[in-house]
């Protein structure tokens, strides 16, 4: 048996529904249809009345989830695409994210965002919005890169009392597979050394972890051993694991699929530069998507986002600095 990243998300929700009567799922087409990506397939059948189709109203969907959370539920919201969560942004960052600070009452909602670029997705079905959510106080922002993390981190997200923005990468949905689901889980606030190395550290997250690993593999033939750190969760951000890796390698490249200005790569470099300046043998580098909307045509998209190839090249440049 083998299970995909998407199936892991479906299984995590099934388990959450089974184990916690407070859990319900709300979003467009999540019911009988099973969701645009089938992440809630059969869940309505298995858990009647607990998977609800919503109107086409992101602001209302999130607001309703917050209200339900205040009354003791554990809502999981599915946005059809991360890009459309912008229409529920106000409720997330100003209502859900401020509740605990203002009142001492936590807001345990999980917002699932099918995120990131795919072929032909175009400007409005491809966005990586993690940075704008992480900028706001009061949110946990998860960006799982593996089937195991998709499963265990989603379960953790539902269990956490704080609002969690769960970025699942559409590019990983179908082709990323694992043998089985994990029994034990690494806590979501710990980064993971996805590949051990010696000569440089690539810090990244979500789908870019796999591009970075491919780049590291390619660089073996150049005689380099590249360490790859998968952040897993970008807020809170496990700076210690990053610093420990940079302490080993002395060189860091940060890679993100999002836009450059104020993205995860800027935040990571800011932390390492301020807290780990002495560990760096060379200037830290970053590689992001280009600063334009995500283009539609695969040829443009393939150049807009970082790839194993461009990551390998950036790493080679870093190694020569």
């Amino acid at each position, binding site marked *: 048996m083998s299970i995909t990243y998407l199936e892991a998300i479906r299984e995590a929700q099934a388990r959450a529904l089974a184990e916690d009567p407070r859990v319900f799922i709300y979003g467009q087409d999540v019911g009988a249809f099973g969701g645009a990506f089938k992440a809630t397939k059969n869940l309505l059948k298995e858990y009647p*009345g607990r998977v609800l189709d919503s109107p086409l109203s992101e*602001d209302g*969907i999130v607001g309703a989830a917050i209200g339900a959370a205040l009354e003791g539920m554990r809502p999981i919201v599915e946005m059809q695409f991360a890009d459309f969560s912008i229409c529920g942004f106000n409720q997330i960052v100003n209502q859900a994210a401020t509740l605990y600070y*203002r*009142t001492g009452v936590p807001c345990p909602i999980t917002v699932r965002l099918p995120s990131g670029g795919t072929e032909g997705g175009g400007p409005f079905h491809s966005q990586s919005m993690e940075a704008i959510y992480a900028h706001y106080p*009061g949110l946990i922002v998860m960006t799982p890169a593996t089937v195991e993390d998709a499963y265990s981190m989603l379960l953790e997200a539902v269990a956490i009392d*704080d609002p969690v923005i769960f970025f699942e990468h559409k590019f990983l949905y179908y082709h990323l597979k694992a043998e089985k689901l994990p029994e034990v889980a690494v806590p*979501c606030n710990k980064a993971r050394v996805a590949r051990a190395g010696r000569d440089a550290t690539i810090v990244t997250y979500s789908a870019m972890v796999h591009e970075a690993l491919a780049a590291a593999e390619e660089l073996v033939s150049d005689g380099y051993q590249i360490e790859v750190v998968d952040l897993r969760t970008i807020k809170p951000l496990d700076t210690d694991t990053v610093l420990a890796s940079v302490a080993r390698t002395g060189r860091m490249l940060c890679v993100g699929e999002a836009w450059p200005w104020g993205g995860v790569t800027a935040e990571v470099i800011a932390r390492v530069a301020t807290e780990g300046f002495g560990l760096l043998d060379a200037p830290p580098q970053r590689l992001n998507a280009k600063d334009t909307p995500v283009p539609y045509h695969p040829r443009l998209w393939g150049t807009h986002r970082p790839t194993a190839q461009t990551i390998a090249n950036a790493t080679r440049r870093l190694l020569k600095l």
Partner: protein
Amino acid sequence: SKKDIALYLRAFKFMLQARIAEDKLASLYRAGKIVGGVFLGKGQEALSASLGVNLRKGDVFAPLIRDQAGRLAFGDTILDTFRTYLGSALGSMRGRDGNIHRGRPQEGYYPMISHLGAMVSLVSGALMARKFRGETGMVGATCLGDGGTSTGAFHEGLNIAAVEKLPLVLVIANNQYAYSTPNTRQFACKELVDKAIGYGVQGHDVDGTSLAECMRVVGEAVESARKGGGPQIVVAKLLRLVGHGEHDDAGYIDVNLKKASVGQDCLVLAEKYILNQGFATAEEIKSWKAEISEEVESVAARVQREPLPDPEGEEWTAISTETLRESI
């Protein structure tokens, strides 16, 4: 009936409390003791109180800017009102939020965020939760102004309540202005209540200057929601008798509106009504006012002696889960 009279007087007393408390808040603002702003419900107490007294423990209430009367009727206190305005560390918002951004979610009393319209879907979601648990007989109420009806959040939240047939009571105070913006620049329908049919909800309109009318119509709306009649919107016509906030002299308000019946003071009218109907004597009302004034004064004095929030003592975090906190 005796019961009706008692309830009417109950509502009237909350109106008095609100009016007297808010007058004091205004003077503290003028004295520079309250920073930021003070936002009063003068002229809207009848509507707000009518809603508050028709709610019960177990209901959900998300009041808005001008609902001091309804807040008190729902269980909020003059003490916590002053604590929140003055930022007392002992207030339910602990100086972190202030003025009208006040509530206790754990008691079904939701603190508004400033973004208008945002509370409608919140209350709808709370009612969805009750529905999940099979609870019936409770309602969720929230308030909005004429301006608030122009927000997408109002539209999405009300539509969700309608689709789910939730016991939502949405009270819209059409006080003729949104800050300085008159109805003519806010909407083009003849009456705001005309929106009801487009959502498939029950619509009610009412003269917001008459406590008796507000009690009757709001009472019916709440009752009908409780009985499973689905979402209700109540649109009241009235006039804001103060500035948008105490910083605002409201020079933009049309004098003809002030002179018209919509411009009457619901509190004055209610007092007249009570005397005419013989519900109470002038002396009784006088004594009520005196009692309330005394309470308000003592609360105001007490709160000003209370500890202020201590920046050093603050846990500077917006995250409840300790293991997930970080200091950046």
